[in-house]
């Protein structure tokens, strides 16, 4: 019973908590937004791939506060744990959340981390650890999770066999927003577990009458979950009342279960049995007549196929009972053949093939859809098994492994493409590069020479600011003229005489004219020299940019085909090893699923066989009674 309670409570809690998200604020980091894009579609592996990479880069930065992820880092650290949890990586999720918990973060953030850690422990049945994590919560708690923390605490108490403590907590949560139906139902279960059957019945009665319509327009999935838990409350209440032999009240409770909900078939079946127990056979006929026209693979429907003619028998309508027993016999026989075919089909490996069919998995209700898959008879009877938590986990693991296997195979094939790209690049660049490098070396030496010259000019000009040197600003013509005048002066000095003197004076005048020009135009020439230097700087900058661009392009060309051999070889080996590992684990996981499915189908087959033999006996019995009744009528007439 305790396991059942845990399952009920756990399923309810998981449904409640799955909806919780702590996103908020404007997006500042595209990669984080990209991870969310995949997470919102339920593609947690893709989300993790992106967020993991982004967080890795962030933590490697020298100044992470300058990175755009910094604006979301708290949310990102939480999200990675969330994604891991959703991708059923509990170990890593626990580690990620513990890291947040142990880091120097805001009290509210730490409390939320503790809550999430407790949630993971609870889901893994580590109840003491869950309580320990919950005990770490103190101080400021984010408003959105206050009730959820207490709800989780109550469920941990309940699962730990402390229903009294759970009752105290759950009483405070009655009517809490976001927990509609769940808090009420769990309180009923806690009271029941605390052996307070009377209180439990009253509480489940309240839980079974809760109104959830007001929420429907606001959060549709939550409202649907609340309605389902209300149905569950009524079903459990009906069972309790039935066991207490309060058949009329039990039937009222079963009648409150919606006819379209997940508990509808069980409610109809039990409503019929309540009426039968109250010896109101005609009232049992109503729900069972409705039930027998439903999906025949459902256990409740199969039971109703036998129960309905039984009720008619009690009403002394033996002819109709005989016909219905005949129909039941035919149905059971047909279904038994189908179950046999399903078992054979599973043995032939078709079950696992059906599970990984892509078109089915696109639908969130794919488990339900499996039942209607025309070419997969092996899944007809497995819906209830598939909805169990353990089987779901195993099944999801199998499907995750299939996804991983496909991914790894794609990667394996991509290595050849990478190598092809690399080879083509090598073939393109390698013949070109020696010639390009030779030309570049030539140009490089010229560039360096010009840069040196420019540096010399700049240095000279700077020197002239403090020590004017007009001769340095002479034009080329002026320098030639001065050279010629110097040569004439030297020649005149070598030939002394009276006729040389006027010539020497002329040379001095010309020299004086030259010096006059240089001195008087010095400022103007210096300004012009600076302007020319600036123009030269622009050209040099242009040349440097081209130089850098060339160097980058040269490096990019080299990096486009050099240095990949080692990483590709290593990755290829890793992918290959992983594929082997995946194949082994998948085979084992698949085998377990098949065995469990065959065991389940075997049990269903046994039940069908038992029903079939009961129906066979009952058909004959009913015909006898019908014949006798007819004979009695004839005799009386």
């Amino acid at each position, binding site marked *: 019973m305790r*396991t059942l309670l845990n399952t009920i409570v756990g399923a309810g809690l998981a449904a409640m908590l799955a909806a919780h998200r702590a*996103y908020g604020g*404007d*997006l500042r*980091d*595209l990669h984080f*937004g*990209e991870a*969310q*894009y*995949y997470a*919102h579609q339920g593609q947690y592996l893709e989300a993790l791939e992106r967020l*993991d*990479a982004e967080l890795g880069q962030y933590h490697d930065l020298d100044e992470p506060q300058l990175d755009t992820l910094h604006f979301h880092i708290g949310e990102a650290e939480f999200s990675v744990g969330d994604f891991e949890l959703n991708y059923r*990586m*509990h*170990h*890593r999720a626990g580690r990620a959340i513990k890291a947040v918990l142990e880091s120097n973060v805001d009290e509210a953030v730490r409390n939320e981390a503790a809550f999430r850690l407790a949630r993971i422990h609870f889901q893994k049945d580590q109840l003491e650890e869950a309580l320990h994590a919950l005990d770490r919560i103190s101080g400021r708690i984010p408003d959105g999770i206050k009730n959820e923390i207490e709800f989780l605490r109550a469920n941990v108490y309940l699962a730990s066999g402390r229903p009294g403590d759970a009752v105290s907590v759950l009483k405070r949560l009655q009517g809490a927003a976001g927990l509609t139906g769940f808090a009420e139902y769990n309180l009923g279960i806690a009271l029941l577990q605390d052996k307070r059957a009377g209180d439990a019945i009253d509480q489940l009665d309240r839980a079974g009458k809760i109104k959830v319509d007001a929420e429907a327009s606001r959060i549709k999935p939550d409202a649907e979950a609340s309605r389902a838990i209300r149905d569950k409350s009524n079903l459990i209440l009906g069972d309790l009342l039935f066991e207490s032999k309060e058949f009329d009240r039990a039937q009222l409770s079963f009648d409150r279960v919606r006819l379209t909900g997940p508990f509808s078939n069980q409610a109809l*079946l039990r409503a019929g*049995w309540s009426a039968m127990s109250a010896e109101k056979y005609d009232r049992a006929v109503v729900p069972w007549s409705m039930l027998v026209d439903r999906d025949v693979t459902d*256990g409740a429907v199969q*039971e109703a196929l*036998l129960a309905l003619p*039984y009720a008619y*028998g009690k009403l002394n309508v033996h002819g109709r009972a005989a016909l219905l027993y005949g129909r039941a016999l035919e149905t059971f026989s047909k279904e038994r053949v189908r179950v046999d075919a399903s078992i054979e089909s599973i043995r032939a490996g078709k079950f696992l093939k059906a599970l990984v069919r892509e078109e089915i998995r696109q639908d969130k209700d794919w488990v339900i859809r499996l039942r209607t898959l025309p070419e997969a008879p092996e899944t007809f009877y497995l819906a209830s*098994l598939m909805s*169990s938590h*353990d089987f779901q*986990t*195993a099944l999801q*693991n199998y499907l*995750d*492994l299939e996804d*991983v296997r496909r*991914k*790894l195979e794609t*990667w394996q094939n991509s290595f050849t493409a*990478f190598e092809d*790209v690399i080879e083509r690049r090598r073939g393109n660049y390698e013949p070109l590069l020696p010639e390009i490098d030779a030309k570049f070396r030539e140009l490089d030496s010229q560039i360096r020479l010009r840069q040196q010259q420019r540096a010399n000019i700049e240095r000279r000009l700077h020197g002239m600011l403090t020590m004017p040197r007009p001769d340095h600003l002479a034009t080329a013509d002026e320098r030639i003229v001065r050279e010629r005048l110097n040569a004439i002066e030297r020649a005149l000095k070598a030939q002394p005489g009276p006729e040389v003197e006027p010539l020497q004076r002329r040379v001095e005048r010309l020299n004086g004219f030259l010096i006059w020009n240089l001195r008087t135009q010095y400022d103007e020439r210096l300004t012009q020299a600076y302007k020319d230097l600036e123009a030269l700087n622009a050209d040099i900058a242009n040349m440097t940019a081209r130089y850098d661009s060339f160097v*980058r392009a040269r490096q*990019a060309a080299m*990096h*486009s085909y050099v240095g*990949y051999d080692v*990483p*590709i070889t290593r*990755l290829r080996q*890793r992918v290959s090893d*992983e594929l082997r*590992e*995946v194949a082994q*684990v998948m085979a*084992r*996981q698949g085998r*377990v699923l098949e*065995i469990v499915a065959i*065991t389940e189908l075997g*049990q269903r087959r046994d*039940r069908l066989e038992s029903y079939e033999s009961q129906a066979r006996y*009952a058909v004959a019995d009913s015909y006898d009674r019908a014949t006798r009744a007819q004979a009695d009528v004839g005799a009386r007439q």
Partner: protein
Amino acid sequence: MPKTFWTLPFSALCALWCSESCADDSYRAQMKGLDEQVQEIKSDVLSIDAELRRLEEKLLYPSNTHVALFIALAKGDSMRLDAVQIQLDGKLAAHYIYNFKELEALQKGGVQRVYTGNIPTGAHRLEVSVIGKVEGGKDYAHTESFSIDKGIEPKLVGITLAGPGSSKAIDVAAW
């Protein structure tokens, strides 16, 4: 029909439940061991993926030519996005038709990487066309051109889309 028949269903239910529970116990341990192995595989795959991503980025999208375009929806906007077409320098870069799940993911604040490629440094023309439906089911189409500058670092461009009621139907920003 003996009365034991109709009491059978409840006990049968319990028996069925018990047998499931017993079966649970027998394979639970095996499942748990397998679950641990699956978690390890997932962890390894994530590690391979990270290394492969780095390799791919270096090999296929070197930073000096790397450009990535991302699609986001304006917060609170009610437009139902059907498709986006993007041209980069007059050439078709991306044409994407959204399904319901993708649209919902965008509406919840997710960002879609719609294109990753290579372009040289310098200015480039980006043309974004949006097709969707506005409130009331009326068709909506809008096209706008933008200029983006590619430097030597990777260029990440965020394209935020909104309906006709917004001041900026298409907003392009470098990230």
